């Protein structure tokens, strides 16, 4: 094959390039449109006040309901979406665990299986966590439960976003 570009090749490349450019001009907006959810930034997550006072929190995990504002596309549920945290005192500090199982996202409960006293239990695949949220080795979860940020303001418990590991 000669290195020289023939007239025919030149035309093919030019036509192909132009067609490709025009085609991309058409396709790019549509692909960007479809990919938008991947490229959107998530909400920051603010602290919300709960109905619990500081002195109600003990060493025993307490299921604390709270509501966070979410925006699900065009759908903004009134009063926010319900969330739950398992809140307890541990070594003098407040620990608020997310109930979302680190295996595949089911919901864990405190002592919800009578077989496993003093542990969080996930019914989906028998995942278990110790009281401080650490996963029990040998059960499906491979990471400890997520923790929420917390603060006490005017005696009330406030819950914030999930702590970054």
């Amino acid at each position: 094959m000669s290195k020289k570009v023939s007239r025919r090749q030149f035309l093919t490349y030019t036509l192909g390039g132009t067609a490709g450019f025009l085609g991309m001009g058409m396709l790019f907006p549509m692909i960007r449109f479809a990919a938008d959810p991947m490229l959107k930034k998530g909400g920051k997550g603010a602290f919300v006040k709960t109905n619990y006072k500081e002195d109600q929190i003990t060493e025993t995990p307490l299921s604390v309901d709270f509501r966070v504002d979410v925006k699900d596309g065009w759908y903004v549920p009134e009063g926010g979406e319900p969330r739950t945290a398992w809140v307890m005192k541990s070594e003098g500090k407040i620990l608020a665990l997310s109930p979302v199982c680190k295996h595949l996202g089911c919901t864990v409960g405190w002592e919800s299986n009578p077989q496993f006293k003093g542990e969080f239990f996930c019914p989906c695949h028998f995942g278990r966590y110790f009281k401080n949220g650490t996963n029990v080795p040998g059960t499906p979860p491979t990471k400890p439960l997520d923790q929420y940020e917390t603060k006490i303001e005017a005696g009330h418990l406030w819950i914030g976003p999930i702590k970054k590991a």
Partner: protein
Amino acid sequence: MLRAVYKWVDERLDVTPIWRDVADHEVPEHVNPAHHFSAFIYCFGGLTFFVVMIQILSGMFLAMYYVPDIINAHASVKYLQTEVAMGTIVRGMHHWGASVAIVMLFLHTLRVFFTGSYKNPREFNWIVGVLIFFMMLGLGFTGYLLPWDNKAYFATKVGIQIAESVPFIGSYLATFLQGGDMVGATTIPRFYALHVFFLPAGLLGLLATHFILIRRQGISGPL
């Protein structure tokens, strides 16, 4: 590289004759704008097809966000148009493309009419073309309701009342189109189904027939 892949496939599946059949055919001098510029009028059919392809593509993408029901329809359109990147462009393609498709189709019809191309032996293809025209009008009509704004609502009411004025079957027709006694919750999913499944399927079938016939009979001769 590309050539090697093509060769590999071609050796096994013998695709060359297929695409030769589809793409490799003579363009007579009287329809080639490179010879007589006025021959551009022969492009309208192809342009209509091109716009229809854009409609199908942009419609597929819009369907990723659109929800056909009375509560979410308008909200989802507003969301995809104002909050999703390039939403204005993609919805704009579908919105303006709808009008352009009808205009192109009309110009194509005029060309066929004034060059007498519908005459023997191409009468059948003229009829197929008229059916395509009705399909496109149906697509325009059903698509118009989907944003569920005031214009959509009242345009559909008017359209359905026109259908209702048909003698004898009018009221049945209106109830069928509405899916009930009024334009509302049952109408949107029905129009959506027609707009994205039934009419496009019919349109593609008719287009295939249109193209097979034109390949079989060839483009009509010069004036």
